[in-house]
């Protein structure tokens, strides 16, 4: 099986004895409250999803990543993973301090050992991460709302945050044991934010043909208005897998992460996380993790050429469609027929049908999948 990124699967969960000691002395520590997105980052670091990161980036890594998309120890990493704090909060902090990161209600989440506290240029951060300063880009807007300073340092998880869909939320060590138990050596990951249509199924099955297993890994968490609800995506996939996939070849587990919409760089980030889950391939489609017109449709394909040492390989699909002449689901590499003969599984049309309470055409979406979605009065985030 593929090795974790950087060679070691990181585990930053505080052992029980140490945890109890910290909790007994909790009043002695300075505390900083963090938001729910940061708690998800902490969880991902602690469970090794972000291996080799062991905490929030200190200044040197921040700079190396911005400049080169590599950590200072020469391991690829596409964008900063940082913790922002206010000027006021930094007054009580200094390097080598140990502090407690809490949720908004004051519950302890993690212990952090502060390496450094540093200023940063938000314009540089956003431009080098997202390739734009346009605040219409949700990632840019998010960084411009960060507090004035960043702090770097190792974290140790004290209390495991509540998870959405705990029965489907596998950690990297769990997926790795699972893949080993199934005898899978080659595993292809599929990242999704939508219920599956026939095109998705075509992509996944084409990729699975040359792998031992398929890892369907929907991103759940904070969504934008109009996105499908997490439970709709999960139930739709359960229906598809039950009816149309060989049981011993597919695993579905959720991936809790904030979407930064960094397009090509986010594709690298998604690939690294899936490598840590034990996948050696990841499917990268058109405009992966993009938003609006900020990135070219195949920028997320091209960026992999700059990371020959990534370990996980992208399987790049430009487009999938139903060709009326071939009478089959095809892609641009295998079908010679013109666009007017292709049905590209337009998301907008699928949504329109579902919003009217109608199942999309069965050539576009499996009836069992449509049936599950239509059970929801409103399958979209309001």
């Amino acid at each position, binding site marked *: 099986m593929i090795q974790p990124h950087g060679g070691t699967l990181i585990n930053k969960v505080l052992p029980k004895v140490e945890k109890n000691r910290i909790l007994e002395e909790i009043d002695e520590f300075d505390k900083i409250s963090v938001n729910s997105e940061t708690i998800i980052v902490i969880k991902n670091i602690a469970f090794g999803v972000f291996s080799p990161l062991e905490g929030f980036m200190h200044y040197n890594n921040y700079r190396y990543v911005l400049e080169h998309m590599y950590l200072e120890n*020469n391991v690829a990493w596409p964008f900063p993973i940082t913790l922002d704090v206010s000027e006021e909060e930094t007054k009580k902090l200094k390097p080598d301090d140990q502090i407690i990161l809490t949720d908004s209600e004051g519950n302890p989440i993690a212990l952090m050992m502060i390496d450094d506290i540093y200023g940063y240029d938000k314009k540089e951060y956003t431009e080098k991460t997202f390739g734009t300063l346009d605040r219409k880009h949700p990632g840019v807007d998010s960084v411009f709302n960060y507090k004035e300073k960043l702090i770097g340092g190792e974290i140790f998880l004290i209390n495991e945050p509540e998870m959405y869909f705990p029965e489907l939320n596998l950690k990297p060590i769990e997926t790795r*044991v699972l893949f080993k138990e199934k005898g899978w050596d080659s595993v292809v990951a599929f990242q999704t934010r939508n219920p599956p249509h026939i095109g998705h199924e075509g992509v996944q099955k084409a990729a699975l043909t040359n792998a031992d297993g398929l890892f369907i890994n929907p991103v759940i968490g904070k969504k934008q208005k109009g996105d499908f609800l997490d439970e709709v995506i999960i139930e739709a996939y359960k229906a598809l897998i039950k009816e149309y996939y060989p049981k011993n070849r597919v695993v579905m587990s959720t991936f809790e992460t904030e979407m930064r919409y960094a397009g090509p760089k986010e594709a690298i980030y998604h690939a690294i996380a899936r490598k840590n889950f034990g996948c050696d391939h990841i499917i990268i489609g058109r405009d992966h993790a993009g938003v609006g017109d900020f990135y070219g449709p195949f920028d997320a394909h091209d960026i992999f050429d700059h990371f020959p040492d990534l370990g996980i390989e992208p399987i790049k699909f430009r487009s999938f469609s139903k060709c009326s002449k071939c009478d089959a689901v095809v892609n641009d590499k295998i079908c010679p027929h013109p666009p007017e003969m292709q049905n590209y599984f337009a998301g907008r049309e699928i949504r329109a049908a579902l919003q009217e309470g109608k199942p999309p055409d069965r050539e576009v979406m499996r009836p069992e999948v449509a049936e599950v979605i239509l059970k929801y009065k409103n399958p979209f985030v309001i």
Partner: protein
Amino acid sequence: MSEEDDHKVEYTTVSIPIPLIMKIKERMKGTGFPSVSSYVTYVLRQVLSSIEEDEHSKEAFTKEEEDKVKQRLRDLGYID
């Protein structure tokens, strides 16, 4: 404490025999790399990555951890 202006990503110079540089330049043609430095950096990263992969070619978990995880996977219905 570090402040932004205190740190810069640093580079250094490495000496390479001229005949080797000529070979590298020949090899680089048509690759799209903008300079010998960027090509050599790419090659070195590949070599180091391969070495590190060999060094770390061990399981990411112990037998004890594996047994514990298997029980949870059974409880969740992922394995029989």
